[in-house]
């Protein structure tokens, strides 16, 4: 029987991570927003000052099984800062391929992120969910998450592209 391990991503995993990033964007119905390249993922995640950290869920074949290990999910996060609470983590992406859902892999990834958060002295971690993604919201709430948008009225805003360039005076 195959075994799932959650481990830190390596540079060589970037091709798989990009594949899963695209699958997640597709699931979120926001595919056209993915502009990242494998080179950027490698440079930004595995250089001297990484912009993100990534965990991958890898299926290790049982002894005797012919196929090699295979990456079926990931959790990508980075450190942020709360001026109220201090060190914090933002879980940017968490995704498990459809055929591997329902086995607790998502929970395992989240638990690993929780351990990382505690190891680094973080008092909390945050993530964003689409309001129609009931299955994800239920999972996070089961693990103790609270909906800050609903409870406190926080909205996510963004400056990008032309608007950001204008702000910078370019």
């Amino acid at each position, binding site marked *: 029987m195959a075994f799932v391990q959650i481990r830190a991503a390596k540079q060589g995993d970037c091709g798989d991570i990009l594949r899963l990033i695209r699958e997640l964007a597709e699931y979120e119905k*926001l595919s056209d927003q993915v*502009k990242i390249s494998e080179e950027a993922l490698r440079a930004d995640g595995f250089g001297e000052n990484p912009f993100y950290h990534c965990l991958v869920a890898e299926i290790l074949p049982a002894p005797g099984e012919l196929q090699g290990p295979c990456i079926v999910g990931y959790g990508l996060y980075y450190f942020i800062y709360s*001026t*109220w609470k201090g060190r914090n983590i933002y879980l940017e992406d968490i995704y498990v391929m459809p055929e591997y859902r329902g086995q607790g892999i998502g929970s395992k990834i*989240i*638990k690993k992120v*929780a*351990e990382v*958060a*505690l190891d680094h002295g*973080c*008092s*909390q*971690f*945050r*993530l*964003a*969910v*689409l*309001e*129609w993604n009931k299955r994800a*919201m239920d999972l*996070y709430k089961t*693990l*103790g*998450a*609270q*909906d*800050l*948008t*609903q409870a*406190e*009225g*926080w*909205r*996510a*805003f*963004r*400056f*990008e*592209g*032309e*608007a*950001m*360039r*204008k*702000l*910078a*005076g*370019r």
Partner: protein
Amino acid sequence: MAKFVIRPATAAGCSDILRLIKELAKYEYMEDQVMSDYRGFGIGSEILKNLSQVAMKCRCSSMHFLVAEWNEPSINFYKRRGASDLSSEEGWRLFKIDKEYLLKMAAEE
């Protein structure tokens, strides 16, 4: 009105930063009771401009931040400058998991 300068903070500035963090928290919960003598002079715009320049210099493709839904002056300030409200437009909700639940998860086996 005296001239103002926007510059990177130094370690010595932390007590001022903490004072302002507390003022902002107070504003976010008791808006009408916090007066400010320094609004309306373009200081906020200048800070935002500085931040955008940092973003461009570091090859960032966007800036993300949170705004409270009742904070109309801030919402207008950002929207006038071309910001998108992703919660309204795409349906994103912010969730948090606090330390007590992180500890619970880490303790499970």
